[in-house]
């Protein structure tokens, strides 16, 4: 801290938010952000962190509900304005709020895809705050928009990015445009709500660098520096940029302090649980859930009680013991067509000469950013998409693609062998028939589609539910009424029902909170050990893949960039792209203080 402590930009004490007379979504929150300071608000979904960010701008109800949100505080000063009414409610005339919003405080919302108006050029969105908060002439504003675009790195190669609509921009460019729109009013405080969540790792890293650069004061004086409040579910992101961190759970701050201290020596059990759940840097096989820690959704998986599925033969116990690899792909190619700018159909190789071998009882991770072809590879391995060239063998026998005589394996020939291969998807709900209950889904899977009555297979369904850590009562529930983690458990139970020996998991934990992710990863680990399963594990998240995989495949643009033993690839990457990916992947920095 510098000697004369400047007046804080945010000085809020006892902030409480509730909706429609219900239980508070945020209660008793204290928060202060000084100029030039970066503070992070961390929590899982439902913790109230986004509502907090909005409440700071009087937008807790989205700005339209008009009074349904009740916001009170013991102190509420934003950028020098005291906005606390006599009755403790946070209130201000509409005109004052509008001066603060965009002028003193900018809010950069999560998901740049929906936070920019798809029908307006991004330049107009950036211009908004200039029009509302400055007295610049239209030409002056146009010049300023160009400067802002340059400042966020959107003015390369001569194209006028400001004239483009969001649909014409990539995810990273949209996020930059959104940040530019926040900066245009020259705010003293920038609130960024999950600024990197939907982005690929390398892009996210550049956005975080941009945010860090913006914090450096333009004229060198500490008081002029921009304050930042970062909202995130990701402790790793936070450890990279923030000086101070507040951990929220269920509307309350459970722990706060300097980032390095909190990460190195967490005081609250919940923080410890969150830190343990982060897979980054945890060796393969380490449990991510703390022993005795109560999960937010379900008890820890009862690995000891798990019974092997009845029809599954006992597979090889260790890697390399079996003669044939569980799943092997050779020279997979898939061509897709897409339309170029003139509307012509152009063929491109979505997957280009991909080969891999998954040894029985082990896990092969495929990591890549969006568009790398990893999901198409999974679809070919599952026999859902016919490869244009190459083949997939399951336990040494052709399963998809070229069956050896130049003809592809027919679905009818594949169908009897499908029980050996299961799949788990990113969004379990969309992989379930919306008309079926958990019991019906499992009965359908157990009986090979012959019945949907759970009663006919009650014992087996009970076994499956037990294996994935759900109680038998879940059978009567509908997947919609379950939490995200519970749904994924149901999806895993369904995949296990036919007694498969190989599971293909496509981003199975990407939509989950980190603590739930930890439970699912632990569950998958237990199941692998107990049932001798082999996994093809696909993810964009390097840390997750590293934690679960024995072997690793790095994909980019449809090609395999690098492959090998996971730890070897991580410790000694051979390719530049792999190194970039590793550098971009957020990791907890608590271990290295002074960073």
């Amino acid at each position, binding site marked *: 801290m510098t000697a004369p402590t400047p007046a804080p930009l945010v000085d809020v004490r006892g902030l409480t938010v509730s909706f429609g007379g219900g239980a508070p979504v945020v209660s008793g929150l204290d928060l202060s952000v000084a100029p030039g300071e970066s503070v992070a608000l961390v929590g899982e979904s439902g913790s109230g962190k986004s509502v907090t960010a*909005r409440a700071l*701008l009087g*937008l807790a109800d*989205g*700005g*339209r*509900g*008009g*009074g*349904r949100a009740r916001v009170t505080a013991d102190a509420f000063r934003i950028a020098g304005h005291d906005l606390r009414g006599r009755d403790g409610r946070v209130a201000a005339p*509409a005109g004052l*709020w*509008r*001066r*603060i*919003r*965009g*002028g003193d405080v*900018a*809010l950069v*919302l*999560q*998901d740049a895809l*929906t*936070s*920019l*108006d*798809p*029908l*307006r050029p991004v330049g107009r*969105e950036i211009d*908004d*705050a200039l029009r*509302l*908060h400055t007295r610049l002439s239209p030409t002056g504003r146009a010049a300023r928009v160009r400067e802002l675009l340059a400042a966020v790195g959107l003015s390369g190669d001569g194209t006028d990015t400001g004239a483009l*609509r969001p*649909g*014409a921009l990539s995810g990273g460019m949209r996020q930059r445009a*959104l940040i530019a*729109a*926040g900066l245009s*009013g020259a705010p003293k405080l920038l609130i960024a709500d999950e600024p990197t969540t939907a982005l690929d790792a390398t892009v996210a890293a550049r956005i975080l660098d941009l945010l860090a650069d913006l914090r450096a004061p333009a004229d060198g004086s500490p008081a002029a520096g921009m304050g930042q409040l970062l909202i995130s579910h990701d402790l790793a992101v936070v450890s990279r940029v923030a000086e101070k961190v507040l951990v929220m759970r269920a509307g309350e701050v459970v722990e706060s302090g300097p980032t390095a201290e909190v990460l190195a020596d967490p005081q609250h059990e919940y923080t410890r649980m969150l830190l343990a759940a982060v897979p980054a840097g945890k060796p393969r096989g380490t449990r991510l859930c703390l022993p005795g820690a109560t999960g937010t959704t379900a008890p820890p998986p009862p690995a000891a009680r798990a019974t092997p599925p009845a029809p599954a033969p006992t597979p090889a116990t260790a890697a390399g013991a079996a003669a044939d690899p569980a799943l092997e792909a050779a020279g997979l190619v898939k061509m897709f067509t897409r*339309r170029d700018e*003139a*509307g012509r159909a152009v063929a491109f190789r979505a997957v280009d000469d991909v080969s891999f071998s998954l040894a029985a009882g082990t896990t092969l991770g495929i990591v890549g950013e969006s568009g790398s072809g990893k999901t198409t590879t999974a679809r070919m391995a599952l026999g859902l998409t016919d490869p244009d060239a190459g083949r997939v063998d399951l336990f040494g026998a052709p399963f998809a693609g070229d069956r050896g005589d130049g003809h592809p394996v027919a679905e009818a020939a594949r169908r009897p062998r499908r029980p050996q291969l299961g799949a788990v998807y990113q969004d379990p709900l969309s992989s379930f028939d919306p008309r079926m209950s958990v019991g019906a889904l499992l009965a359908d899977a157990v009986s090979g589609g012959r019945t949907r009555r759970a009663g006919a297979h009650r014992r087996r369904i009970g076994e499956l539910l037990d294996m994935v850590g759900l109680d038998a009562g879940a059978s009567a529930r509908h997947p919609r009424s379950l939490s995200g983690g519970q749904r994924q458990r149901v999806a895993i139970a369904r995949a296990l029902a036919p007694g498969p020996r190989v599971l293909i998991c496509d981003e199975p934990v990407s939509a989950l909170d980190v603590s739930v992710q930890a439970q699912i990863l632990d569950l998958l680990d237990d199941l692998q050990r107990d049932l001798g399963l082999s996994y093809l594990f696909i993810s964009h998240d390097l840390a997750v893949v590293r934690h679960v995989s024995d072997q690793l495949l790095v994909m980019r643009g449809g090609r395999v960039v690098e492959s090998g033993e996971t730890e070897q690839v991580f410790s000694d990457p051979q390719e530049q792209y792999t190194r970039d990916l590793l550098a971009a992947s957020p990791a907890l920095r608590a271990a290295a203080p002074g960073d």
Partner: protein
Amino acid sequence: MKILRWLLTRLAGGLFVLWAVATLVFIGIRLVPGDPVEAIVGGPGSQAGPEAFALARAEYGLDEPLIVQYGLMLANLVRGDLGTSYSLKVPVAEAVSEQLPGTLALALLAWGLAWLLALSVALFTALATGPRLSRVADAAGSGLEIFAAAVPHFWLGSVLVLVFATSLGWLPPVATDSPAGLVLPVATLALPLAGFLGQVMRESLATALASPFALAARARGESETGVVLRHGLRHAALPGISLSGWALGSLISGAVVVEALFARGGLGRTLLSAVTLRDIPLVTGVVLVSALTYVVVMAAADVVERLVDPRLGTTTATRAAQPDLAAGGGRP
């Protein structure tokens, strides 16, 4: 280059549609029982003898083999000759071009009025903020729209005549050439359409105002009016534009009723009498002109829609026809 390509595709598509419609009508008339010549010599139950039938058959080329008749029809069509009306005994092209301007004027005025009403209601309900007011405005707007969309043209016209002509005497009960004579027909045609358009526009507007980009705009200090006008308006108009093809159908169907109701000349009335008298060349003519109008309107709507929303891909006719769910009052 891109524009030329688009134009050519459009043109080819339009010609295909016109050819298909003409062929459809040609086949249809030959499939149904009954002799088309009956209509020429004075309708069903006419006292004309066999000679009169033979004469008429020869005059209209109906004694040629089917394939020759079909070829002749297409050849004539290419030259812009739609044949001769059985009932009016004048060239169809002449009869249609005489009636077209009146109907066009009626339809365009009604379309404009419908847009105006629908947008006004949508904007009004969007700008009515505050918990109670917005709920009341929403319910009122929605109720009005559902009622307007459910009202049949012929009943609405009758009621309007009853109130404004018969009881109050403000407006003439039948269409006249004066502007006052147009008020009731235009209103009758416009209100149900406004109900439909209003439903989709209001819904689209509400979705836009609840979306993150509207919140982002508020977070920049934009006032609610600013959010509605700068962001919402475009989103509200979009479904209205893509509903153009459907709206045209509603206007044509409505014109048939409204022109009959207000004793106003026009394509609708011509079509009705042609259908009643089974005057096939005249029916074909009116239908072809309507189909042509449809093709033109769809192309225009496509251009406007792309200007408003460059997200649209290459599919064109598909989108235009999609909001048929809205035809039933729902949302596409």
